[in-house]
């Protein structure tokens, strides 16, 4: 065995060679019945092994498929976890930035495609935390993000950009439509009573809007929206600015 090359199917091949030799060189087959039987038994054993091999392979494949499915499930769960804000369940900063990059790339390629972004900040949020405690602060963030999310439907996406700051991408709408949506939302939030642990309050939000038509640069668009948000704050808060 050590002199020749190892083959996985050495025994099977040997049986075929021997059987061929035997058939070619034998004049009276009855005289060699014993040899035939040996070959037959050997081949039966190998056939049994082949069947076993396939059975074992099926078992291994099934095990691997199960493991693969489990891994995929886990990996999808991780992907969702990595892109979701744990408090609000909306996209986190990383995810919303990815979506923004994607929208920007699309708008550069397709001149017909455009989007607006809304940068929104909860006014005097620090005071909410200081006066009512962090659980109330968390409730405010949750209620406002849910309200925004529900109203947005399929018009765009919203993500948590920072602590009390949200970034929304509004697809294929002109700046006036975006403003109308934002201002309606602003009013709705102002009128909303938010309750946590028996204590109620209401808050206002300020927003700055920028359009993809204003720049092809990611940071510049963000900066434009941020400056308008700042302007809304400077002008007494509870306002939406788009220029």
């Amino acid at each position, binding site marked *: *065995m*050590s002199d020749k*090359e*190892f*083959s*996985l*199917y*050495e*025994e099977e091949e040997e049986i075929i060679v021997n059987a061929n030799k035997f058939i070619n060189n034998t004049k009276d087959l009855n005289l060699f019945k014993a040899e035939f039987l040996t070959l037959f038994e050997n081949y039966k*054993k190998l056939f*049994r*092994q082949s069947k*076993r*091999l*396939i*059975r*074992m*392979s099926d*078992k*291994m494949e099934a*095990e*691997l498929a199960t493991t693969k499915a489990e891994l995929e499930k886990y990996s999808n769960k991780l992907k969702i976890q990595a892109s979701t804000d744990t408090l609000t369940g909306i996209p986190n900063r990383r995810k919303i930035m990815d979506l923004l990059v994607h929208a920007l790339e699309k708008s550069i390629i397709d001149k017909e495609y455009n989007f607006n972004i809304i940068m929104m900040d909860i006014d005097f949020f620090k005071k909410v935390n200081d006066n009512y405690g962090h659980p109330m602060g968390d409730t405010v963030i949750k209620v406002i993000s849910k309200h925004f999310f529900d109203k947005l439907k399929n018009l765009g996406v919203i993500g948590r950009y920072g602590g009390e700051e949200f970034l929304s991408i509004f697809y294929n709408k002109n700046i006036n439509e975006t403003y109308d949506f934002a201002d309606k939302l602003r009013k709705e939030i102002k009128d909303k009573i938010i309750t946590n642990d028996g204590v109620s309050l209401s808050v206002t939000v300020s927003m700055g809007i920028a359009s993809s038509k204003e720049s092809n640069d990611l940071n510049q668009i963000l900066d434009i929206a941020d400056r308008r948000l700042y302007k809304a704050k400077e002008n007494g808060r509870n306002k939406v600015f788009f220029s």
Partner: protein
Amino acid sequence: MDNIDIKSGERSPSIMCDWQKATMEIKGESFPENVTEFYGPVLASMDNFFKSNKNINFTCTFHLLYFNSSSAKVLMRIFDMFEEFTKSNMHKIKVFWKVDEEDDNMRELGEEFAEDIENIQFEIINK
């Protein structure tokens, strides 16, 4: 005769063979790119060892986590070899099929091998 000491790779198990102690252990995962290249020299050394010695009490331990079909075929060749040398009263060979406690799949595969074994001692043991 030189002992065999093959370290495990990404796709191949470790193989340790101490001829003096008459022990062998194959451990890890087995789906080598070229199963013939990987196991060929090992099988040749085993065959050589069994043919050139007499009345050896040989122990072979398998602790595998995964193996592909070609590796299963190699294992069958190994067990066939063990069966032949035991049947002809040349050696006494004992096989331990080690499985992790929760690895039902590997236990069942060990039972599959055991079904074809008549002459050697084949034991499935929990790690």
